[in-house]
């Protein structure tokens, strides 16, 4: 089994799941307002490669979706990666009963549909957001605006931990350079010695 310290160090990455862009809570049945109905599901579709504006969608899955899932465990989230680059990358948001008041503005006039998204149940209304050529930050701001998701405040402990981890990362960079210099110096010296020895041998032969 992996060394305990390595494991514990790796486990610190769960901080990235708790905090960061996308750490927000969707309106649920208890906290829903008239303006923002509860979100029941999300579905993301994008193509495997980045051209034709699929990059942001994948980054959104990598960066934001785990945080959303952590803070909204009951919201089902599915991702479909396709081979079809010509497809429009899209995010389908499933609202219970009705769309949020801001959703139509976010969707825009151009209506698209996603054939990979699961069909909405009779009580669900869907909003399909076009993600083409958007960065994941832009995608997140749209999702947040459309759903009225409330950002989770980072706790003081988490902030302190983040600072500590950043300091460790910075120090690791410095240490890496330092050790690299030492190793290089040792190699250089060995090479010089070997060359010098070679010359002595040559002198002897003469």
């Amino acid at each position, binding site marked *: *089994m992996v060394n305990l310290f390595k494991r514990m160090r790796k486990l610190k990455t769960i901080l990235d799941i708790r905090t960061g862009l996308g750490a927000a809570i969707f309106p649920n049945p208890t906290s829903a307002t008239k303006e923002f109905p509860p979100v029941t599901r999300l579905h993301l579709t994008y193509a495997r490669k980045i051209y034709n504006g699929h990059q942001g969608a994948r980054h959104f899955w990598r960066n934001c979706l785990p945080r959303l899932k952590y803070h909204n465990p*009951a919201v089902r989230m599915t991702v479909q990666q396709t081979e079809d680059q010509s497809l429009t990358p899209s995010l389908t948001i499933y609202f219970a009963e009705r769309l949020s008041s801001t959703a139509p503005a976010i969707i825009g006039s151009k209506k698209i549909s996603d054939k990979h998204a699961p069909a909405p149940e009779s009580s669900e209304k869907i909003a399909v957001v076009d993600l083409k050529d958007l960065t994941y930050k832009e995608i997140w701001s749209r999702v947040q605006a459309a759903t009225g998701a409330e950002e989770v405040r980072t706790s003081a402990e988490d902030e302190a931990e983040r600072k500590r981890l950043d300091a460790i990362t910075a120090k690791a960079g410095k240490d890496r350079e330092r050790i690299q210099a030492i190793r290089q110096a040792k190699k250089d*010296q060995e090479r010089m010695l070997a060359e010098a020895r070679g010359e002595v041998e040559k002198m002897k032969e003469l």
Partner: protein
Amino acid sequence: MSSYGTVLPAAARAILSSCRPVYRQTSIGSALSGFQQVRGAKSNPQARGKGKKESKSDKKGPREFRQKSLKDVEQFALCDAMQYLRAVEVGREPTTSKYEVHIRLRTRRDGPVIRNMIRFPHAVQTESRICVICPPGSKHAKDALAAGAVLVGEDEVFEAVKAGKIEFDRCLAHPDSLPALNKAALGRVLGPRGLMPSAKTGTVVEDVASRVEMLRGGTVYRERDAVIRLPIGQLAFSPEQLRDNLRTTIEQIKKDASGLTDRVNKQVYEVVLSSTNGPGFSLNGEFKTDNSPETSALTGL
């Protein structure tokens, strides 16, 4: 050397320090030499390396696997660990992502290892394909087919395997076909995949049919370097289902450990829940904490 001094000060320092004993022997006075000799011997990498090697060959190393104290380790309740793992696995292929459990044991480095098969209350694999090597047309072959084996036979199986077509996850053999199996020399192909039937692993059995039935819902596990790793559940499992599986596993492993010879003492030391793409969460034995989400929220995909 001066060029190094300007480009890499740290490098230059290192070179100078390692060259120092040479300078001293020739140029510096004898008053300091005793002190320098000591330093020289210490900083001489060759001398140091030699000493270390000798001491290493004397020692055999610890008799037991070293297991650190878990006092300061962050441990999680099952539901909390599941919440993180489900977040990590979001958007992954639901059929490939699984919960895994790693059970660390306090045990000696030598001696017998735990090796068994388990049937979970909630099946992890949907279906495992089983191949049975037995004389075709015999009663065993018919029974095995009835029990759900996908591939039954002797020569046809050998041919397929030799051609590189291994379309099964498990392989059983009947003792009657063992000579034929050994003659076919499939060990090189099946061995590395862990599919070669042998009496030791319990895959050469008289009653093939019942074994097939058991294998279809069962998972094989074994202890490697004091850890037993096995898949424990699908990602869609509810916390209760996962708890049942976990409980069954640990109970059986404890039973296995006590079933070994008397002098061997094995204890479960740490239980780590992980997933296909996730980090390992050390479990503290609790089911949920006050902050955990509802168990229904941690179910399904």
